[in-house]
């Protein structure tokens, strides 16, 4: 890997941001001028924009809203479209971006989730899918019962990559079958009723590669597999595995290189067997 030559980096560069003041509002482009600093990533670009709160034309604006936490690509919060590519803003390095596209950087919110404001999106649907596939080990309780089951290093090495999924949503953004579901609260509707209606809408939509992979993670766990049937039922219900069009975009954009398509293939075989078994057990 060649480090970018310093002289090719300009002192200032442009950042175009697709902003939106709130859900249902019209989005608009805004241009900011950013001073280059060493070791800059898109987060430090956004920090500078927030501190300045002024567009390229010198117009005072409210700071751009964005979501982040760990800043080392392990929490999944800061996912957005950087120069059209779904990725984490923290690991998007400015010098590399300017090398690829010298006329500036373009930032947009993810398109498959409802925009809350600017680059902040609402990803509740993603966590809802983890509930649907029961992505947990149903232990009896939290009292001492000795160690977990003995496992081979090979099994650990299969599970560990799947367990690194940080629920960032990149695989969903890239998936042609995953389409945006935005539910708005009705006049006079209680918060609880709204949440219930929203959850039902999410459950009808495609669960996505991340949740399929999590179902596989728990179905290969020695204790988790005791509830394998329930997870396979979830995978074959409305919005399940059958929606997958095998575009394989998910695996290409996963920042953690999780073998998502391998999980999907495994889930395909397992659900087929599960359905046959259920048919003959009737």
């Amino acid at each position, binding site marked *: *890997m060649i*480090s*970018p030559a310093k002289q090719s980096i300009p002192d200032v560069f442009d950042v175009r941001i697709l902003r939106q003041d*709130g859900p249902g509002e019209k989005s608009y482009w805004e241009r900011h001028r950013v001073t280059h*600093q*060493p*070791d*800059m*990533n898109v*987060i*430090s670009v956004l*920090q500078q924009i*927030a*501190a300045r*709160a002024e567009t390229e034309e010198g117009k*005072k*604006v*409210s*700071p751009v809203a964005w979501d*982040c*936490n*760990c*800043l*080392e690509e*392990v*929490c*999944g*919060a800061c996912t957005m479209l950087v120069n059209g590519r779904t990725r984490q803003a*923290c*690991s998007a*390095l400015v*010098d*590399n971006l300017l090398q690829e596209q010298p006329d500036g950087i373009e930032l947009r919110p993810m398109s498959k989730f409802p925009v809350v*404001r*600017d680059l*902040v999106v609402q990803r509740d649907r993603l*966590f809802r899918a*983890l*509930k649907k596939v*029961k992505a*947990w*080990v*149903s232990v009896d*309780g*939290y009292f*001492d019962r*000795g*160690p*977990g089951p*003995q*496992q*081979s*290093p090979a099994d650990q090495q299969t599970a*560990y990559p799947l*367990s*690194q999924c*940080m*629920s960032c949503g990149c695989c969903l953004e890239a998936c042609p079958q995953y389409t945006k579901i935005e539910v708005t609260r009705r006049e006079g509707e209680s918060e609880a009723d709204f949440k219930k209606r929203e959850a039902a809408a999410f459950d009808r939509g495609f669960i996505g590669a991340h949740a399929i992979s999590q179902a596989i993670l*728990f179905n290969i*766990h020695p204790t988790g597999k005791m509830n394998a049937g329930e997870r396979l039922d979830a995978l074959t219900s409305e919005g399940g595995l059958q929606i997958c069009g095998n575009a394989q975009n998910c695996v290409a954009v996963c920042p953690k290189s999780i073998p998502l398509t391998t999980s999907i293939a495994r889930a395909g075989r397992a659900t087929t067997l599960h359905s046959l078994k259920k048919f003959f057990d009737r």
Partner: protein
Amino acid sequence: MPKQRVMVVGGGLAGLAATMRFAEMGIPVDLMSLTPVKRSHSVCAQGGINSVNDQTRQLGDSEWKHFDDTVYGGDFLQHQPPVHEMALWAPRIIDLMDRLGVPFNRTPEGYRDQRRFGGTLYKRTAFSGATTGQQLLYALDEQVRRWEAEGLVTKYEFWDFLGPILDDNGICRGCVGQNLTDMEIRSFPADAVVLATGGCGLIYGRSTMSMACNGSAVSRAFQHGALYGNGEFVQVHPTAVPGADKLRLMSESARGEGGRVWVPRKPQDPRDPREIPEAERYFFLEERYPAYGNLVPRDIATREIFNVCIYEGLSVEKERPCVYLDLTHLPRTTLDLKLGGILEIYEKFQGVDPRDVPMKIFPAVHYTMGGLWADYERTSEGRLDIGSPKNQATNIPGLFAIGECDYQYHGANRLGANSLLSCIFSGLIVAPGIENLLKSSSHGASDDQPSSLWNAAQEKYQQEHDALLNRSGGGENPYLIHQELGETMTKAATVVRHNRDLSAALEKVRELQERTSRCSLSDTGNWTNQNVVFTKALQDMFPLAKTILEGALARDECRGAHFKPDFTMPGIEAEDPAERRREAEKWCDRFAENTKKWLKSTVAECGTDSEPKLRYEDVDTSLIPPRPRLYGLVGAEVIEEVWKERVAAGSQATSSRPNGEKAEATKHSPSTVG
């Protein structure tokens, strides 16, 4: 059935461990967090989690030795019974996490693998790749999601804790939170509030901590009367990668595998590091510590790197302090095999391959040992009375603190791979105590208290919020003030501390606090207003910043992470045996005197003017008597010899005393704070 429920604030390892235990007991939990809990800062922990295990046990290890390493590493500044109990629970905690599905690395036979970490002789550390914290957090997140699906847990993610609600008797009856999306301010009645909100690294501007670690929740409790312990103890890790937004950790194992730390002898030598000949490189750790070289203890490495850059002007870059951590002389196969994970982080964030080019690193603020003062119930055997509502209780009745935001477990310095343990442990043990607290009342807070209590609290914060939004501008910029605060704190109160710098920093912090009251908001709306949330968090950084500085200023000694060059105890240089002996006697006298004077926890109370008032609390050292920490000190052998003789003489004297006196040596309650 009373309508009782518990509020847990913070969804990292500690908060989630507590939440899942409450849910198991059938106690409904409201879980409030700045971020979706799966994105909490615990995910950043890499190394592993400590416990004695079947293998180390057969090599002579025991829970007692884990306990001893922890208090020795912490320079004896922690009450021993809770630490003792934690070491006893550690093997069971790892078993539990294993059952919950954490993919711990395995031996060829299928057992959990362990590696060795700093401050111990045993391979005590269970690990899951290089992302152990992430894996542990996910296991707890999954369990909490399971209870959420069953209706026992209600999550309030993207909510900010604004403050506890105290009734007329000063009892905590709930808290006020603010929704970060629609900015709604709401009172949450609760029969107990558990703070699990982590460290406060953001006070230092950039640190290895996540953006949520701003200390605001703890500060808000502090400003409501909760005591804060050992504020001045902040761990600085020697090797982190400086970034414009964050300092990213670079594990100690890089040096363990042969990495060398150096700077060019010529200040800010403009040449490519690879073109600087060996003779013109200053391997300062190797030159100054010929025996230990690059593997000197963490605090020493941190201090030396800091000195070279700040006081000796030898930083690699002029505008930004850093030194080279060089791996380029090592075979690529070794690097890929043993350090692959951390090298990828460097490559990803620096855009440079550390196999070819030396890494640029600098120490970074990493962990806050100090935190909210928390109580415990001691048994006569020096263990914890599990089930006592005193465990993890702050001095405000009904308000509890667990995880990094309490001051209990790590004293003056934390050992690697002990933080994940203390977080899960304190989370698991707070629940049975609170269960008993709830049983002692037949009512729930929500139907026990007049609605005026909730309305008044909500109203107060709403007014403050509105006033901040409508404040006519004074022109100050909160983001720039935060940068100045970070620079001030980093300069005065990290690795090397001088009283004159600490005093100057206090003045500066007071000035910044005053300027913050004149901040203009660039966003005055009421929808996802990150500007106002940040400004509130900034305001609340000052009371804690002043607590750190005042504590450090007052403590005229060196202990753990707190280092004052004016108060060091140099080693023994003499060569004549009789002279060495005499000096060692003097050294031990001075140590005993210093222990008497300073083996005390700092306890701060926040005044109405937001200025901390300091008191000191005796430490329960009834299980392991304090001894000198001699690692790396010149003449350590002779000091140790003299000290052991004194201990032997002392124990002869105490054994003639009546039984039981030793166990009652120290009391623990805020009332004994002198």
